[in-house]
């Protein structure tokens, strides 16, 4: 007897179900295409599992409510698209500095501004990394199928809880709105991570006390007797504001090291045919599916092409890209924007091999043929 359940699911639905499996019990959102099904689904499903949904007055408020709910002890999520993602940025930075776990789903559309609300794009790559001001830690994940949306959403919550960071989940409109077969894993076998609770009595608790070398502090919920202070100002271990340069450096360094010291745990990617590849495609989301087809077509024609598919797009798998660049003749980065991730690949490749892009930002997808043409072009 199999413990798996096979379902036909839409990408946005898989995201919501993955979140609920991960323990998400609070959703605050604002209607925006093409993410709306996640909010609609949350409004229906959360009360069934004792969770809370709220439609806020705007995207800024949604992000704020998510952080508030997380501080009150709930795993919390919001979902949006480009314009809403821009509005959420200040509070994403707040979550980053105050180390409040949360998940932000961005079902991307063509931009800038209102852009192309119903068309696919992968144009928020750099925004996912640097959307909010200041040096800050962030994790961004990018699934490539409906099935993977389910599992990667669970991963997003696990990483948010483990490292106490906001995790951005980037979805492609075409996958978010596509229906595919999803094999739901046995719930009992899914690893769920919860934030670590304080190991000390309230009198001894310091909310931001952690190993300066990237440690993650313990986090009680408001109402559990710890009565601590949270501020978006730079703060000491006590949680209270400080202007001191040493305190500031210690905090910012620890925040960045939470990510930098744990790259092996955070970075996920999938490789296909890299060993003998002369040309390596670096692609994520739906474009990785076109890239896989292009790779198969090229191999049939005797061209050794490989595929590197980052699932964690931030932090960047720079060390692995560097290794690939040392062996390959060329790296091609197809993406539905004008070359955002290519910049990062070029930086890591450091002129060890040629790096080229296949780009479009017109609301249409990149086809396998587009990529195959480029493969032949760089040979």
């Amino acid at each position, binding site marked *: 007897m199999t413990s798996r359940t096979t379902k036909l699911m839409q990408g946005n639905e898989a995201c919501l179900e993955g979140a609920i499996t991960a323990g998400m*019990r*609070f959703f*605050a959102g604002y209607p925006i295409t093409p993410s709306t099904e996640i909010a609609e689904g949350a409004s229906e499903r959360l*009360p*069934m599992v*004792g*969770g*809370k949904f*709220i439609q*806020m*007055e*705007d995207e*800024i*408020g*949604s992000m*704020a*409510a*998510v*952080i*508030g*709910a*997380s*501080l*009150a*002890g*709930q795993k*919390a999520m919001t979902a949006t698209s480009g314009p809403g993602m821009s509005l959420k940025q*200040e*509070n994403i930075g*707040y979550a980053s500095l105050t180390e409040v776990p949360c998940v932000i789903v961005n079902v991307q559309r063509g931009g800038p501004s209102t852009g192309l609300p119903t068309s696919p794009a992968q144009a928020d790559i750099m925004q996912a990394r640097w959307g909010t001001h200041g040096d800050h830690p962030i994790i961004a994940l990018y699934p490539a199928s409906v099935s993977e949306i389910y599992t990667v959403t669970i991963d997003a919550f696990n990483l948010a809880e483990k490292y106490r960071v906001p995790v951005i989940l980037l979805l492609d409109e075409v996958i978010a709105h596509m229906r595919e077969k999803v094999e739901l894993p046995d719930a009992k076998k899914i690893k769920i991570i919860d934030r670590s609770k304080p190991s000390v009595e309230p009198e001894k608790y310091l909310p931001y006390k952690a190993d300066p070398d990237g440690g993650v502090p313990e986090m009680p*919920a*408001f*109402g*559990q*007797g*710890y*009565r*601590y*202070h*949270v*501020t*978006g*100002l730079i703060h000491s271990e006590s949680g*209270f*504001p400080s202007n001191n340069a040493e305190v500031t450096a210690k905090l910012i360094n620890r925040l960045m090291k939470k990510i930098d010291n744990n790259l092996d745990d955070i970075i996920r990617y999938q490789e296909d045919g890299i060993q003998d590849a002369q040309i390596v495609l670096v692609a994520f989301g739906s474009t990785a599916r076109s890239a896989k087809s292009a790779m198969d077509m090229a191999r049939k024609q005797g061209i050794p092409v490989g595929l590197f598919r980052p699932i964690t797009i931030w932090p960047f798998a720079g060390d692995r890209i560097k290794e690939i660049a040392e062996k390959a003749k060329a790296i091609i980065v197809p993406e539905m924007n004008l070359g955002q991730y290519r910049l990062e690949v070029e930086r890591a490749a450091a002129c060890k091999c040629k790096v080229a892009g296949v780009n479009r930002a017109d609301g249409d997808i990149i086809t396998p043929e587009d990529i195959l043409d480029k493969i032949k072009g760089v040979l």
Partner: protein
Amino acid sequence: MTSNLVKEYFRMDKLPHIWCPGCGHGIITRAVIKAIDELKLDKNRVCIVSGIGCSSRAPGYLDFNTLHTTHGRALPFATGIKHANPELEVIVISGDGDCSAIGGNHLIHAARRNIGITTVVYNNNIYGMTGGQYSPTTPTGDKGTTAPYGNIDKGFDICDLSRAAGATYTGRATAYHTQLLIKLIKNGILNKGFSVVDAISVCPTYYGRKNKKGDSVKMMQWLKDNAVNIKAAAKLPQEKLEGKILIGELYNNPQPEYTDEYKKITESFKRG
């Protein structure tokens, strides 16, 4: 000598506070803790949430679950807390700019939902933290560092605005009328839905200086002389109320509270 009230509810090691000499905010903060004390609320269950500005520094000095958020956003953060755990007593401390300018949209929608949050607006008619720019409650004609020729904007009445948007409890008192202020904050907390207490403060450093209002004592005297209780106001002709501050319990009309209504939905699934 430090009062027992201050010792009980302040984080003594965080004092002295950042407020200027003569600022009214300390008096209002005392009224907040006095109200909490008289209601015998469990400190562990009280959350105080603020935005950005002079007033919003208050939670850092207070021994509760305290959250100093982003500018204008105290209410949606507080909404997340209250909705996630309705057992918590959530109080928002906000300034006039924080609450009614950058946070104005959140104010009207928190009021519309009638969510169980008590908002105390430390209203000093100016942006103090940034150096005296005019705010949505700076009276027309008054000066600010961004209104050197006099403010041509019309001001908000935060209580009227909140009531019109759906707040079920509104009241106004001043830093001079502390007993009334304590009573209003208590009643605001006791109201299950969304409550707004407009606490008129004094800012001698910026608003007072820019508008030649004199020192803090003179500004407090002005509050004393120009505040009219709503009960007395009812008997006065309109012309006698020109330029006066209407104080007292302005509106008290309990209505179903947001998290209670949501609970009915979740409970319906438990009954299955």
